[in-house]
């Protein structure tokens, strides 16, 4: 581990890579602040840039920097104008916005930045401890277990979709998997399900899909409902940021929150499907419940703890979500799914072999996470008053630009105008799916995992000459049973709870 750390340090501290971190964080903050472009869209837009760079460590460092920056930017807009750019920072607006209303916007931003820094840093330390452990276990896995593990990951994502939504999430995952089978498979060079269209020969482009699923519906929502983006009008005036200092008493009351939420957030982030949003809400709820009586009354009105908790938790969770990505090659969230897509595009195959075969990538990414956290704290925080000016851009300018960037992201990856038509088509479908309350992240994760899943499935089938691998390998069977339970138990329990509420079942 020490050796790896040294390799990572020397890679991360090269001039190019330092610039990547700083640049990534700045771009991420800038764009993350805008409503309509979440971290997933920004990372997807940045992928062509990352591929142009060519060096996988530099590219991944850039993308991780963008990711961190976007989360930070999202919390800035939650605090300043109560318009979270990212779902993971919704909880930050509960106490951050009242604080900004009370004229303490600067203080709120500092609390957010310090909490993010601590959450991120402790998260990275835990990542350093747990990722090597997990990947040494994962090295024992065969394709059958991999297949089963992916099934577990996908079912967990569906299971975390919440009561009443599990079937919808499963359906979206399956749709993603089905879409992944379009085009030429890796195993057999036969075009499948292309309906004779040349443009589908190589399958759907994942950047196009990511844009269509996230950026476009969000932009459509902004158009449909102007109240969602309060940029331009009142937002610009409220963005006044003065006096970034926090008092010693505030720091003292924050400290235990930071410690608890870093650890809790990290482990929630490791779970597939849970991620930053759940971590931040849970962090907020836990801290409110264990706070003293008078502190509890403060929550929702500008409490220091109420802001520190979700901010710490969401950053720790972001770091945690890198654990399954780097060790198993299984993304637990939409964002890490896009990062996985970027890695595949860069010819890096993530998984347990990553640490053994290309330790410089693995460790450089971890070290740059430290640096990224530091950059956000010392470089971005003082710049926030200036960056926040972007919030005063009127929406009539902002939305065409968001749409344009969405299209550019899809276009320059493939250099094909048909891709733009596919983008608009899927964007429309995705908007309808959002109206109908279908979660979209499982679709993308299913799509990205689809090819790998089929590979492992086919290899296991070949090895065992049929479906025998499911019964002959106890670990595979165990994982698959676990996956089925993950999906079935929540709906069964919800059903029983409902029946009991209706007075039917009484056990």
């Amino acid at each position, binding site marked *: 581990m020490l050796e790896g750390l040294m390799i990572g340090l020397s890679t991360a501290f090269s001039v190019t890579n330092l610039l990547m971190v700083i640049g990534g964080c700045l771009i991420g903050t800038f764009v993350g602040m805008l409503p309509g472009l979440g971290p997933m869209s920004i990372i997807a837009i940045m992928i062509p840039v990352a591929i*142009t760079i060519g060096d996988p460590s530099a590219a991944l460092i850039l993308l991780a920097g963008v990711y961190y920056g976007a989360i930070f930017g999202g919390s800035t807009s939650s605090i300043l104008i109560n318009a979270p750019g990212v779902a993971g920072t919704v909880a930050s607006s509960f106490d951050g916005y009242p604080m900004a209303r009370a004229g303490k916007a600067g203080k709120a931003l500092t609390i957010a930045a310090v909490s993010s820094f601590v959450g991120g840093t402790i998260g990275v330390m835990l990542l350093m401890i747990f990722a090597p452990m997990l990947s040494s276990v994962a090295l024992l896995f065969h394709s059958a277990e991999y297949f089963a593990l992916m099934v577990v990951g996908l079912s967990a994502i569906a299971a975390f979709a919440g009561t009443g939504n599990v079937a919808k999430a499963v359906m979206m995952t399956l749709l993603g998997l*089905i879409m992944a089978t379009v085009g030429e498979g890796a195993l*057999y060079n036969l075009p499948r399900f292309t309906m004779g269209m040349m443009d589908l020969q190589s399958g759907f482009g994942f950047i196009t899909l990511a844009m269509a699923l996230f950026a476009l519906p969000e932009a459509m929502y902004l158009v449909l409902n102007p109240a969602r983006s309060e940029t331009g009008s009142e937002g610009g005036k409220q963005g006044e940021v003065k006096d970034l200092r926090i008092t010693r008493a505030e720091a003292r009351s924050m400290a235990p929150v930071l410690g608890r939420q870093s650890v809790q957030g990290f482990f929630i982030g490791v779970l597939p499907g849970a991620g930053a949003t759940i971590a931040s809400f849970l962090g907020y709820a836990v801290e409110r419940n264990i706070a003293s009586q008078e502190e509890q009354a403060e929550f929702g009105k500008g409490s220091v703890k109420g802001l520190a908790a979700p901010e710490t938790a969401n950053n720790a969770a972001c770091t945690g979500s890198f654990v399954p990505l780097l060790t198993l090659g299984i993304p637990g969230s939409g964002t890490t799914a896009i990062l996985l897509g970027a890695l595949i595009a860069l010819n890096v195959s993530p998984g347990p072999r990553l640490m053994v075969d290309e330790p410089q990538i693995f460790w450089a990414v971890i070290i740059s996470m430290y640096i990224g956290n530091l950059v956000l704290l010392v470089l971005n925080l003082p710049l926030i008053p200036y960056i926040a000016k972007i919030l005063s851009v*009127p929406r009539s300018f902002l939305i065409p630009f968001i749409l344009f960037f969405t299209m550019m992201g899809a276009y320059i990856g493939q250099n094909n*105008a048909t891709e*733009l*038509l596919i983008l608009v088509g899927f964007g429309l479908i995705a908007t309808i799916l959002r*109206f*109908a309350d279908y979660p979209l992240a499982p679709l993308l994760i299913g799509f990205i995992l689809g090819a790998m899943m089929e590979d492992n499935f086919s290899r296991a089938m070949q090895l065992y000459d049929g479906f025998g691998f499911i019964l002959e390998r106890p670990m595979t069977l165990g994982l698959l049973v676990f996956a089925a339970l993950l999906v079935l138990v929540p709906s069964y329990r919800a059903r029983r709870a409902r029946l009991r509420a209706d007075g039917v079942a009484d056990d």
Partner: protein
Amino acid sequence: MALDRWVALVFLLICLAYGYTAFFTMDASLPPFMQRNPVWPSTFPKVLAVLGAVTALVILLGLEKPSKEPKAQDINYRRLHEYKLGQALALLALMVAYALLLRPAGFLISTTGFLIAGALILGERRFHLMIPVTLLATGFIWYLVQEVLGIFLRPWPFFMGM
């Protein structure tokens, strides 16, 4: 029938068509040497088609009841006409136009046009601000993509020979 069930119905139809292809038409084109393999290109799609159809039926038949607490819906699709639907559709049409024009008209003209028309649709009328901003942004982005990233974008229309 609520929108989510319509979606499930459409998905069920997709699964049936997909499953039909996987079960009945795909294997015909399989080369003989591959037929001895335990796994065919259609194996995984077959599994997916069955699972997909079952899931779609679960939603369609309402086996999983939605949670009772009302959700904070940000847009209610039943009252879509109360929102700025016209603007949204116009922007989508504009995007299609952009996709079709990007190659023939070149990047600079189509992008400037797209940004200006987009702002117009959204009700912007300050031309003295709009035109310089879009021109500047278009030029800057073209330079960034073409020169810095090295990805070719044809700047001018096709008849100008570039």
